[in-house]
């Protein structure tokens, strides 16, 4: 068994280390899951809202111009793809590059069919807003009681 106090001390030391490691692992526990698990490097984070007869998709696309983005819609299938080009200035030494680069593509299956002809897309402050009106058949209907 333990012959010296220092052995016991060391044992507790190891336990504390393990405890700290576990604490770090769950350090940001309780935050929205996306802040814990990163998405595929360049793929933008998106939100989906539903409001009566429209869906709204929002995507974080900092630094992208509207020509860098492609949106494809068919029925209830939506694809957002694009490419983030490097904006590294010429003749500069690089200290840090954390901002992701390259092409991305995300596909969604929307809860209902959308009318592709009436979709509105706007890009503002690095956020892409897509307003997707639901297809006739998927819109909420008022039923009158006979």
């Amino acid at each position, binding site marked *: 068994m333990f012959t010296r106090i220092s052995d016991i001390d060391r044992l507790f030391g190891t336990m504390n280390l393990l405890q700290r490691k576990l604490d770090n692992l769950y350090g940001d526990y309780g935050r929205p899951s996306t802040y814990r698990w990163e998405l595929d490097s360049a793929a933008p984070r998106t939100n989906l*809202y539903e409001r009566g007869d429209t869906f709204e998709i929002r995507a974080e696309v900092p630094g992208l111009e509207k020509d860098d983005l492609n949106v494809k819609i068919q029925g209830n299938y939506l694809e957002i793809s694009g490419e983030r080009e490097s904006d590294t200035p010429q003749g500069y030494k690089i200290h840090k590059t954390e901002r992701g680069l390259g092409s991305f593509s995300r596909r969604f299956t929307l809860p209902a069919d959308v009318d592709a002809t009436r979709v509105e897309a706007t890009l503002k402050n690095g956020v892409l807003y897509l307003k997707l009106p639901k297809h006739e058949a998927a819109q909420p209907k008022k039923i009158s009681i006979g």
Partner: protein
Amino acid sequence: MEKAKEIAKQEEKNVEKTREMYEVTPAVDIYENEDEIFLHADMPGVVKEDISVDIDNGTLSISGVRKLETEGSAAYEEFLDVEYVRSFSVPQTIDVEKVEAELKNGVLKLHLPKSEAAKPRQIQINTA
């Protein structure tokens, strides 16, 4: 009895419910050349009015608050309103007066020019 009263009071105070805002670290790129340090920070959804850039005693702090209006119910949300916060140590040789910031497409670009004294200088050799 006294205690029950207190609890009721507390509830009254918390009538207004606010959503908790997270602080997140924006991704940055940092470049440097002979004249300046050039910083890019991703802050999608932040408007110019909600960004602050401070340089104080060798520390550069940038902060931007994202306030997006939402309508309807959220089917899912991968990003929320957040505060982008980050600070950096910058050399004292930065010319604070001439710092320039621009915001475009959710990317903050900061030019931090070096003061004249800190720039490398070519020394002329005079022949006697």
